């Protein structure tokens, strides 16, 4: 976070102002379902405004890490703080972008309706969006340049268009922390770049914090401040160049693994 010095000195006089606290802090955190340990004694602190890439093979607990942050998966031991407090369900300061699953062709929902659910879908009751809510929807649609197809049935849109609407849906609540669960899966290369730039650009412009789950680090290489790699219940965290090394990866996988850098891309060969 730039301007750190200023907020530190302010922090000293105001005690702990909320934006002084890290966006998230896992401390010796262990997550388990029944008896199966997903990851254990995870310790990682992400300052506000940073971009964290969460890497690892399928089933290694990347999504569980997001569920812990969302307050949907309680820890077995250790502690977790999110935006200065314990994780809790429905925290309005957290935006969430799921994997692109694709809507049914005929689902009666337009792009703007999906974004509108991000404003008030969680509130009980019945009724149209407020005027202020509609203004926010328009602004969010504009921010991802989804205006031209916002009135189309969402099931008829391309994967990339649907993901743009997902980003608008997550940002319409003006979050401080954005959690992305494989938002690039099943998108082609061009859309992968567009979607990553929208998320990375938001983090840069708004000094937002991003936790980005992906099985391929390459699309986010230019954005990630640090990575955490989880596999078989073990983990390694730190700057990309320090974690994605042959030595570290071999240790995590408990098998000889080579990390190659080819034309600006990182390839893990095991």
């Amino acid at each position: 976070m730039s301007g750190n010095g200023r907020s530190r000195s302010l922090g000293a006089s105001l005690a702990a102002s909320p934006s002084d606290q890290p966006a998230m802090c896992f401390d010796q955190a262990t997550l388990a379902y029944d008896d199966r340990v997903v990851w254990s004694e995870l310790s990682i602190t992400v300052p506000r405004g940073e971009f964290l890439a969460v890497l690892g093979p399928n089933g290694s607990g990347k999504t569980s890490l997001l569920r812990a942050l969302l307050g949907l998966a309680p820890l077995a031991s250790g502690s977790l703080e999110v935006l200065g407090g314990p994780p809790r369900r429905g925290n309005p300061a957290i935006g969430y972008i799921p994997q692109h699953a694709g809507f049914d062709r005929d689902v009666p929902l337009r792009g703007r309706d999906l974004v509108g659910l991000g404003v008030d879908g969680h509130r009980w009751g019945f009724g149209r969006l407020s005027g202020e809510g509609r203004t926010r929807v328009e602004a969010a649609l504009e921010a991802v340049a989804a205006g031209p197809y916002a009135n189309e049935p969402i099931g008829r849109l391309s994967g990339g268009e649907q993901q743009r609407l997902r980003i608008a849906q997550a940002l319409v609540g003006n979050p401080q922390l954005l959690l992305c669960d494989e938002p690039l899966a099943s998108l082609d290369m061009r859309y992968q770049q567009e979607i990553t730039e929208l998320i990375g650009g938001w983090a840069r412009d708004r000094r937002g914090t991003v936790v980005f789950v992906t099985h391929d680090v390459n699309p986010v290489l230019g954005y990630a401040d640090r990575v955490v790699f989880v596999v078989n219940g073990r983990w390694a965290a730190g700057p990309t160049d320090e974690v994605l090394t042959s030595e570290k990866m071999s240790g995590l996988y408990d098998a000889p693994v080579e990390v190659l850098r080819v034309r600006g891309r990182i390839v893990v060969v095991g």
Partner: protein
Amino acid sequence: MIDQLLHLLPYAFVQDMLVAGVLVSIVAGLVSRFVVARNMSFAVHALAEVGFTGSAGFILIGLSPVLGLLTGSLVTAFFIGALGLRIRERDAVVGVVMAFGLGLGVLFITLYARYSLAFTILFGAITTVSQGDLMLLVAMAALTIVGLGVMYRPLTFATVDPVVAEARGVPVRLISILFLLLLAAAVAEAVQVVGVLLILTLLITPGATAERLTAQPGLATAASVGVALLATLGGILLALVTAVPVSFYVTTIAFVCYLAARLGAPALGRFRGNPTA
């Protein structure tokens, strides 16, 4: 025929029936949108068929058949909710509960030994519902509408976008259970009009028709209620002046609406979703 209708309309029982028809249609129109979106037609069938058992059982011990239907479908909803909410196991659980429930129904009808009664419950006849039960029906429908109104927005969110809804703090599991209970009440109400076997004509067809017409959720809900109203009120009025049961007319009107929407949808295509917010 029109003269005959005008002659009948001033009667209190006809007016009560029409009021009940309007409320049941609103319930059916709202609920069928979610039944279609959540793929719950099999559950609707089970709720109705075990409702039949409840109805037969209550008549056997001298209680209200409407209340019996509500009890039967609520108990079924409870079992489905407790045994399986995940899609994967839901179908099997619904089938298991429905088969046993219907077996009990056979027993009750045999003990009562009046098969015309079975015909009435299976094929519906709002024209034979007693005055007291009609009032009960009106109260049940009004309560169901209130319940749906309270949970409409989070139910919509949890239906079209369950993963994000959960992340935003919507209690998706609780919503599933509450919807199942409201669905049980809606089934008990709609059965009074069209009967157990024809229940889907009010709890699927309106929602399926609306989906064909527009991608705007608010408009689709309005269209769904509209189709349910047209079919129910049209059916009741036509049945009053002819010798054919209500359910025949309701199913026919609903089916014609659906066909018209399917055939007309390509022409409407460019309007799909076009109207702004």
